[in-house]
């Protein structure tokens, strides 16, 4: 890849705008609510785009393209099954409790609904997780820039750390949200021409499907294995992912997806910044519309790349092999940028990638500083200080959070295994979360003791399931089977889905049992926090098509149509 002056100019323009947005917002940051929650003043279309963008880190973009090459169209299940239904559920059913309770964070909702220990457990695990995710984002960006532009590891880390630090310090959550909107458009404008050029190169949609059919047959699958979703999920043997429909629908479509989209403060925080309850509820619904179409932007390049590699595109694009002889799928996006984009467009593509790395970091940092300040500092360290004090604590937490992320990036660079281990632990902690929220919001009898013990039981179940099963031919260790091997899964993905299912079931059952054995809270204390005790939000003042239920139904219909089109 040979960037020229025009590419550097394009990247610099982006950096200048990022910092300029921070500077322009500085005057609006007067209270802690401005800094942590954007003063709850942002219109729904902006929080909606930020909602989807906060999740669209560069690892996601690069990983989805890699999966598109490895697994084909079935990867879009992560969007059409693994995101859309949960986003609709969040907007229609859950947002009234998050926004309506005036909780300033997801852990704070747990405090209002359950008790202090449940909140603290969630807040601490979440805070640690955000710092490491931000560090991993930095690490991945540094590796990629080293490869593409020859930048040193330290240079990339420091550059991204300083830029993110400056714009969050200046403009708080609003800065992060505005930059996420900027990144959304950059990803769309940076990747759409890549898909168009790749498709043209391989002979259009017809050329793509022909290539993928030939390849699927040569690898021992049915011809449409790379082009279908549900129809190849009858048995794990029929699809390259190695999963069956039940694990897909329950594990990904229900437990993992609802657990992430409905309880992760990183995304929910964007909705809490919305200007009204209606705007907060519309946030994930508006986000769902572009989310539905993103497979065509991020997964399709992978499918084009693999088809070109095997079948041959006119211009000779091919994925490289790794040292062990397997194809290097992670290089789909960077290599396609270098292959199809001339100077100029190359700068735009690189800018889009850098933007998504940095907003990935910034999203984690803004969630971290809020949870640290409200749920840990204000709760356990200094409860009754003035608002200005907490604003300053938030700024210090921003600096500390980025400092810790930099440290995490260096740790990741030194000891790759530690990061794998941490991500595994996070998966154990996250898997049961949705059971706690589901019971908290929809069963007034559930209690704080039940929630707390249920969460611990869910995490323990996840760990135990992982320790007792193993995917394919892996050796016992970080991939599983470290207690004993009782069951072999056809793939790691199948194992992940089933770990989540077990964690959810254990958390659900234990929360119910312990709740029934402990004293429930007075019903009047739960008004606004539990579905059956809360008045339905009225949305008659809005046009009918903007009502959350109507919008939600429309979005689900769209997802259903996409599922049927690529059945």
């Amino acid at each position, binding site marked *: 890849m040979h960037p020229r002056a025009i590419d550097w100019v394009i990247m610099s323009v982006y950096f200048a705008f990022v910092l300029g947005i921070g500077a322009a917002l500085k005057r609006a940051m007067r209270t802690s609510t401005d800094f942590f929650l954007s003063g709850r003043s942002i219109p729904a279309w902006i929080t909606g785009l930020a909602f989807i963008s906060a999740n669209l880190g560069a690892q996601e973009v690069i990983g989805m393209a890699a999966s598109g090459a490895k697994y084909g169209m079935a990867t879009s299940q992560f969007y059409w099954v693994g995101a859309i239904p949960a986003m609709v559920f969040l907007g229609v059913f859950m947002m009234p409790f998050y926004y309506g309770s005036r909780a300033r964070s997801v852990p704070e909702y747990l405090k209002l609904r359950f008790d202090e220990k449940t909140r603290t457990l969630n807040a601490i695990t979440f805070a640690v997780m955000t710092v490491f995710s931000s560090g991993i984002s930095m690490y991945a960006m540094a590796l990629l820039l080293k490869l593409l532009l020859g930048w040193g590891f330290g240079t990339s880390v420091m550059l991204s750390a300083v830029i993110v630090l400056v714009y969050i310090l200046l403009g708080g959550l609003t800065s992060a949200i*505005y930059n996420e909107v900027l990144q959304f458009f950059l990803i769309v404008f940076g990747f759409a021409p890549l898909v168009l050029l790749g498709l043209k190169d391989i002979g259009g949609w017809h050329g793509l499907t022909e290539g993928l059919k030939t390849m699927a047959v040569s690898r021992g699958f049915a011809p449409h294995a790379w082009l279908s979703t549900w129809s190849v999920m009858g048995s794990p043997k029929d699809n390259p992912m190695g999963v069956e429909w039940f694990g897909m629908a329950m594990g990904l479509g229900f437990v993992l997806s609802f657990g992430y989209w409905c309880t992760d403060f990183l995304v929910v925080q964007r909705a809490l910044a919305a200007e009204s309850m209606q705007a907060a509820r519309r946030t994930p619904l508006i986000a769902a519309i572009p989310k539905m179409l993103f497979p065509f932007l991020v997964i399709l390049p992978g499918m084009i790349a693999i088809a070109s590699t095997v079948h041959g595109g006119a*211009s000779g694009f091919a994925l490289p092999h790794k040292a062990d002889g397997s194809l290097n799928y992670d290089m789909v996006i960077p290599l396609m940028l270098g292959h*199809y984009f001339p100077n100029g467009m190359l700068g735009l593509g690189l800018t889009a990638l850098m933007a998504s790395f940095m907003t990935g970091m910034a999203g984690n940092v803004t969630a971290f500083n809020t949870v640290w300040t409200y749920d840990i500092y204000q709760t356990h360290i200094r409860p009754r200080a003035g608002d200005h004090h907490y604003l300053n604590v938030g700024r210090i937490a921003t600096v500390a959070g980025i400092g810790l992320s930099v440290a995490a990036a260096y740790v990741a660079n030194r000891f790759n295994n530690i990061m794998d281990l941490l991500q595994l632990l996070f998966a154990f902690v996250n898997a049961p979360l949705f059971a706690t929220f589901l019971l908290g919001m929809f069963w007034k009898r559930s209690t704080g003791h039940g929630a707390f013990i249920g969460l611990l039981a869910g995490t323990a179940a996840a760990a135990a399931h992982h320790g007792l099963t193993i995917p394919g031919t892996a050796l016992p260790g970080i991939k599983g089977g470290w207690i004993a091997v009782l069951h072999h899964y056809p793939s790691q993905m199948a194992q992940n889905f089933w770990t989540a299912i077990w964690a959810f079931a254990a958390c659900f059952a234990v929360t119910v049992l312990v709740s029934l054995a402990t004293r429930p809270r007075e019903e009047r204390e739960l008004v606004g926090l539990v579905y059956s005790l809360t008045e339905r939000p009225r949305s008659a003042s809005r046009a009918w098509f903007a009502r959350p239920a109507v919008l939600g139904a429309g979005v689900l219909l769209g997802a259903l149509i996409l599922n049927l089109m690529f059945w």
Partner: protein
Amino acid sequence: MMGLDIRIPVGSMFALLGALLAGYGLFDGTALSQRSLGINIDLWWGAIMFAFGALMLSLAWRARGRTPARGD
């Protein structure tokens, strides 16, 4: 909205990037088109980005005219 209508930075950034790309494509078109399958993608995509930026700016401009200034 807090202090700054987002359509202003989004619009001006895309208008500027679009103009830069289109200008570069115009100036050095044939050499550039080799990679992008004979299409002068800098010129065409730059023009589309410029149009998007201009649209965003005009929306921001119109909104400024319509909403009465709120006593912030």
